[in-house]
């Protein structure tokens, strides 16, 4: 490591270059994060907008109905469109809705008179049609009308007073596409988030002194940013530059003195940065926005950590289930895997090659296929598991029914079936590398088999098993397919683990920001776990030092 010590002493001009490089990197990462936030928000925003128009149509219809049948009749006969009266508001995308003006398409100056007349007739005809058949589906039908430089959307709703249907009221909303309001605030937020990420990585890499100093700065930034977004970019970029200066200076020095070395790592690192780290930074960015793309600060995190009373399950329950899930799985995988490996390692055992080949088969089959098969095997009526129980005169169990325990057990059995071969193979490899003379020596010294196992086998297995267990527990912690496909989280999301709960928030509830915040918490939990295991056992150092 002499080179890096040297580089630390020679901080001068390279420092400036590194600072510029750091600022650039964070600007790029932040830009990508903003891009994602914007895209996702826009897509979800469109759906939300239409719902909102329908709601205001209903409200307008009710208001009109409250004024009596005459008012409704007059409105319907005169203008094809009834005005919207939502407060004028420009959203994050520069689209202003409704405003306080009555929008009557037929009288819009931007429309050619002939078009306006045609449109007016069409609207009246449609209104008549709706009046004669006020079906529920029609109420939420939207029509977009193109007018030069403007976009209108309309929705209809029934005007009902005292239980009497008075007619359909159409609400037309003008959508004014404007300059998208991707603000400095968003950009700043994204940059600051990237900064936080860098901080986490620095912590992980052990640059604790540096990270501690930068942590204070970042904390202040976040506190500032949550109250006032202005000026974030400059502050964050400066912080980022300060934070990353030293490592980058070292890196630049390395690049100058031993460029050949970096040629070997560059392909892997570059592809990891583009396809793993940048997407992750974008995900981090998402977690600070709601699904409409409005920055909400820490609201997603607060909602997760202090959940509303109406939620099916809380973060803490799900976390508990995840821990239970991980621990039971890893214990079963390791004990079954190790047990089988010990049996298969007996020198006098015949056919062990055959057993070994057949026992690793579960590993080779795509796990979403096996998950589906197991799900069906747990079927109450037709499943093989209950048929098996019936052989012993036992009653069938409603495995995937309303009980947490049976759902959890079904998941556990499936994943144990999937997971033990990996541990078995790792343990077999390690067992085969233990020199046989050690056992002979132990035998000569009068050690029993149990003693030989405890004092010879186990200590020598540890270096291979510990990294495998850590890796296996991280995989199990994030094992999506089994939970999602076997129990599906049932009953009532109770058997969901953190990752499936995050997916549920994303796919079913459409809350991408919330899901991203959830995922970020999962990441931090795993990071803490990794850090702890690294501290507790130095056994992983062989792999990572």
């Amino acid at each position, binding site marked *: 490591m002499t080179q890096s010590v040297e580089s630390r002493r020679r901080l001068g001009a390279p420092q400036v270059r590194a600072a510029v490089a750091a600022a650039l990197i964070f600007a790029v990462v932040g830009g990508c994060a903003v891009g994602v936030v914007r895209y996702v928000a826009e897509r979800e925003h469109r759906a939300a907008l239409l719902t909102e128009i329908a709601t205001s149509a209903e409200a307008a219809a009710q208001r009109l109905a409250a004024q009596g049948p005459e008012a409704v009749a007059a409105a319907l006969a005169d203008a094809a469109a009834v005005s919207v009266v939502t407060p004028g508001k420009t959203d994050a995308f520069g689209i202003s809705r409704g405003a306080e003006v009555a929008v009557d398409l037929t009288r819009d100056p931007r429309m050619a008179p002939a078009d306006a007349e045609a449109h007016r007739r069409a609207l009246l005809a449609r209104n008549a049609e709706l009046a004669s058949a006020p079906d529920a589906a029609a109420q939420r039908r939207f029509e977009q009308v193109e007018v030069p430089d403007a976009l209108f959307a309309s929705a209809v709703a029934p005007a009902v007073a005292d239980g009497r249907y008075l007619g359909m009221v159409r609400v037309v909303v003008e959508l004014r596409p404007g300059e998208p309001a991707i603000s400095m605030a968003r950009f700043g937020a994204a940059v600051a988030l990237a900064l936080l990420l860098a901080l986490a*990585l620095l912590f992980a890499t*052990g640059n604790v002194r540096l990270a501690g100093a930068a942590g204070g700065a970042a904390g202040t930034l976040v506190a500032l940013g949550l109250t006032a977004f202005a000026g974030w970019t400059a502050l964050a970029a400066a912080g980022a530059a300060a934070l990353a200066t030293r490592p980058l200076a070292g890196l630049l020095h390395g690049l100058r003195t*031993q460029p*050949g*070395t*970096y040629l*070997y*790592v560059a*392909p*892997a*690192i570059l592809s*990891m940065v*583009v396809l*793993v780290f940048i*997407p*992750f930074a974008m*995900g981090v960015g*998402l977690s600070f926005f709601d699904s409409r793309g409005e920055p909400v600060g820490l609201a997603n995190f607060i909602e997760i950590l202090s959940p509303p009373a109406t939620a099916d399950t809380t973060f803490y329950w799900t976390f508990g289930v995840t821990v239970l899930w991980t621990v039971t799985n890893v214990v079963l995988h390791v004990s079954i895997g190790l047990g089988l490996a010990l049996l298969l390692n007996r020198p*006098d055992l*015949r056919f062990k090659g055959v057993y*070994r080949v*057949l026992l*690793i*088969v579960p*590993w*080779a089959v*795509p796990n979403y296929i096996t998950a*589906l*098969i*197991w799900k*069906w*095997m747990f079927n109450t*009526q*037709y499943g*093989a598991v209950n*048929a098996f129980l019936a*052989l012993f005169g036992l009653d069938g169990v409603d495995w995937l029914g309303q009980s947490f325990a049976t759902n959890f057990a079904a998941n556990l059995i499936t994943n144990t*079936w999937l997971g033990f071969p990996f541990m078995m193979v790792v343990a077999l*490899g*390690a067992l*085969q*590398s233990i020199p046989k003379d050690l*056992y002979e020596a132990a*035998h000569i010294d009068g050690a*029993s*088999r*149990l003693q030989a196992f405890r004092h010879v086998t186990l200590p020598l297995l540890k270096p291979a098993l*510990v990294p*495998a267990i850590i890796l296996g527990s991280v995989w199990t912690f994030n094992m*999506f*397919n089994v939970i999602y496909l076997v129990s599906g989280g049932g009953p009532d999301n109770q058997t969901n683990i953190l990752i499936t709960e995050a997916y549920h928030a*994303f796919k079913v509830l459409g809350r991408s920001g919330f899901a991203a915040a959830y*995922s970020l918490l*999962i*990441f931090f939990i795993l990071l803490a776990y*990794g850090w702890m295991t690294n501290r507790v056992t130095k056994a992983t*150092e*062989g*792999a*990572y030092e």
Partner: protein
Amino acid sequence: MTDPGHSTVGRSRWGVWATHGFLVAVTLATLYPLMLVAKIALSPGQSFSASLNPLPDLATATLDNFRAVVSESTPEGEWLFGRQLLNSVVISLATTVLGIFLATTAAYAFSRFRFPGRRAGLMAFLVSQMFPGVMMMIPLYLLMQHLGLLNRPLGLIVVYATTAIPFCVWMLKGYFDTIPKDLEESAIMDGASQFTIFWRIILPLSMPAVAVTALFSFMTAWNEFILAFTFMDDPRAFTLPVAVNAYVGEKSIEWGKFAAASMLVSLPVMALFFMLQKNLVGGLTAGGVKG
């Protein structure tokens, strides 16, 4: 407790039989779900049998389900299954080649050189294993969309090869570390370049580990479902796992075809496992044991 343990003499015959009995029971339990799949695939119709017997009824056994799956075509008459098989083969092989290139070069540098950023790089690989997949899906989709790689094999190839890097580097670096440095030193004396050492000495010596890396890269690509399902919406661009999913409906599953297709998807990877299983045992643990 006077049993002499791991020696070849003195074990009772009953003990051997008991061990075999136990292993046969475990093996049967392990293979049972897959035997069921084979049975369903060979049975006529699309229902899931309620019987416990995992052996197909030979009287009614038929290859109809396999025939139906293999001859799947588009309405225009293009051979869809063939196309999807080709996609899977191309994507998996290209992922393997690219994955090995990315992983061996990086693992070699991490194992043999000391350079600024080495520790951070290794840590970053480790930390990346903890990124939850749900979080990566949206950004990756957008990235692929932006690069115009949706519905293209290249998109999946680069993503698969990249996501397999950390595990492969971890495994390969462990193996490289066990190769004595004397060999390289004498090669340097003879005037060999760094790349020659990597190409002519390290790689040939680590063939078992490289084989395992290849197996993993291939398996990741061949079996992966969610990303392929997300990135590909044109049936002609599907990989086989996504094609299998077509038999899984909202409410019911076409079990016969599903089982037949599952078997067809699983067979190549199983064959590779059988071929490479000796390496698997050694290659996976070499790095760890050295610790």
